[in-house]
């Protein structure tokens, strides 16, 4: 393949980043205070919560399933932790963090086992765990519990060097780690393979059930991290944390290249998806769009993004077609040359 074609394809594959860039440039000129260090940090920080959920959903979608329970895990994991630790005499924040993560992972494990082993429908199953968890957390924490241990709230509240939010750093780092995992390690590739064709992967010796379970566990862990961020940010745990975030998590993952069919998507793309959604919210507020219209405007922007993304697929095919034609002509010339000689 020619170098140029390669670059074109690379750009297309990462179209969400181009969209992000375009939107960024537009706002830099058109939106007051958008292009300030502070606002950019804000966008990162504000996207971190949704970003964790986008990644969680994206990974589950990679293996061809879906998980509606992540936004409930976000409230459930810190909720249970706070209930347990607040009854302790001298609660250790590190134990509490560990516990939150473990609860998240455990929920993922349950989801994963039922879905991979017992072949439960992932939509229905995670819908039921979502409703159950939301119900339980409402029952157990009807009133929010504020005043967290500083270390527990660090992820959501802490700042590196007093300025840069820890959550924003963690957000980017986590995405980079997963990007590496999924593009460069066998562990990560197995997710894409399983999602791409479960049967073929099974036949070639991948333990596909384990991969699917692992995807749900990772999603649960990431949801728990999101829970830590949310709790830290409000310095409290409430039962309504994360309500209705799951839809946008899907949107971010699909914008980032994911698909319900599985086998698609890259964490780096999903990072772009999460940031794009965050930036849309931010820019609409900064522009001072009428509050009653913000929602419609947001829908409109997502619409545009979809159309551009759609265009990408067409363009991709076109570029390959061009490449092919070119090769064809070249070989034709070659053979003509060899006949002549």
């Amino acid at each position, binding site marked *: 393949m020619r170098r140029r074609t390669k670059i074109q394809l690379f750009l297309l594959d990462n179209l969400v980043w181009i969209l992000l860039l375009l939107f960024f440039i537009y706002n830099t000129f058109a939106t007051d205070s958008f292009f300030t260090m502070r606002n950019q940090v*804000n966008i990162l920080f504000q996207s971190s919560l949704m970003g964790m959920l986008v990644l969680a959903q994206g990974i589950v979608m990679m293996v061809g399933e879906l998980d509606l329970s992540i936004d409930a895990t976000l409230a459930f994991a810190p909720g249970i932790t706070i209930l347990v630790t607040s009854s302790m005499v001298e609660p250790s924040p590190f134990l509490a963090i560990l516990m939150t993560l473990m609860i998240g992972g455990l929920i993922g494990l349950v989801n994963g086992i039922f879905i991979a082993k017992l072949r439960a429908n992932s939509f229905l199953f995670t819908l039921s765990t979502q409703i159950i968890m939301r119900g339980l957390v*409402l029952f157990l924490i009807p009133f*929010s519990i504020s005043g967290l241990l500083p270390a527990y709230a660090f992820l959501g509240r802490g700042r590196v060097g007093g300025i840069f939010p820890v959550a924003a750093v963690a957000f980017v780092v986590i995405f980079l780690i997963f990007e590496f995992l999924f593009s460069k390690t066998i562990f990560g590739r197995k997710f894409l393979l399983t999602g791409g064709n479960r049967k073929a992967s099974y036949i070639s010796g991948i333990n596909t059930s384990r991969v699917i379970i692992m995807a749900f566990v990772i999603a649960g862990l990431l949801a728990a991290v999101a829970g830590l961020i949310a709790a830290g940010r*409000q310095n*409290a745990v*409430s039962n309504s944390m994360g309500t209705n975030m799951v839809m946008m998590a899907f949107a971010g993952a699909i914008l980032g290249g994911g698909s319900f069919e599985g086998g698609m998507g890259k964490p780096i793309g999903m990072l772009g998806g999460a940031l794009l959604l965050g930036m849309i919210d931010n820019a609409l507020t*900064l522009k001072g769009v009428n*509050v009653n219209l913000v929602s419609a405007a947001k829908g409109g922007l997502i619409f545009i993004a979809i159309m551009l993304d759609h265009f990408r697929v067409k363009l991709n095919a076109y570029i390959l077609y061009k490449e092919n034609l070119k090769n064809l002509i070249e070989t034709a010339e070659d053979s003509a040359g060899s006949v002549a000689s």
Partner: protein
Amino acid sequence: SADAEPPSGGEETPAAAEEPAETGTKKIGMVVKNANAEYIQAFIIGAEETSEALGIELLVTDAQGDSIKIMDAIDTFIVQGIDGFILAGAVDLKTLVPGIERLNEENIPVFALDTSPEGGYVDMFLTFDLVESSEKAARQMIEGIKSANNGEVPEGVVVEITGALVDMFAVECNQGFNNVISQYPQLTVVQGEGNWNNDDSYNRTSDLFTRYGDEIIAVYVHTPDIMGAGAVAAIENTGKDPADFFISGICIGLEGMDLIEQGKLYAVVEQPALDSAILAVNYLNDLFNGEAIPEIGEVVEVEGALWSPGTVVENPFADGGRMMILQAPLVPQEADTDNPNLWENRINPGQ
């Protein structure tokens, strides 16, 4: 204490459904707006404790913000033969009217807390007047601004973090806030939809601070109980002190109480949630026993109660009925944070 009797086959006529209620314990049906808000939990606790003390059976259903669910619940309650009904908040106040009318047809007394249906006959609407309370909070915020600027209201930007815009509650909050703020043309209001949650409230506040930075002189949060912490955290994150922005609004909640104590919230009107539920059940009980409840024009006074005096007037929203306006104190200006009569201090969240 419910009847253990299974329904017998012959009595399936609609009239029969109400039969057992005449003889056995009285039943009250209550629909709440959305169980995951703290003040709604206060409604539930108030109603539950009072009913238990009075030997009344209380049925509670969560409408999750949906008028259709409210009407579903009403239909089901009627089948169960309730003797009284309490509506504890609703997102939309017109769309549930047919449900209220059904209750009226069945001669079941209707009480409303928090917000009043805008139609049908409501026996009594117990309120702390959202518009008026919002005005009160907004006025106090203006006082705060004045105190920091030698008694003047300077030019500047006021941030308004709204509730979910589909909600009538948010509309009334906005109305009260606007009534006050519009008297000061030098103030520019910028809105962000906080959507009744701390995350959105955080995001919108920090966006607006980025945009308007030092021009901002005050922040009004519709309901600090569920959006205050987000706004406070956002301001703190810009390196500013929340106390400088006179954050005000209505509804405190447990988290809000902490923030007021820390001086991060400036003035919040307490919603007499617990008391209004207790009053509603008590008055319903009075009706069950054939006793009179306060009529229009009366003023109810109870020694020491924060809500006292309660004035009973004609309900301007519904098609008739009483409206009892309860007092709602500004915290900490009118009542201390440790005032034992605030519901936030009366309930025990560690249950």
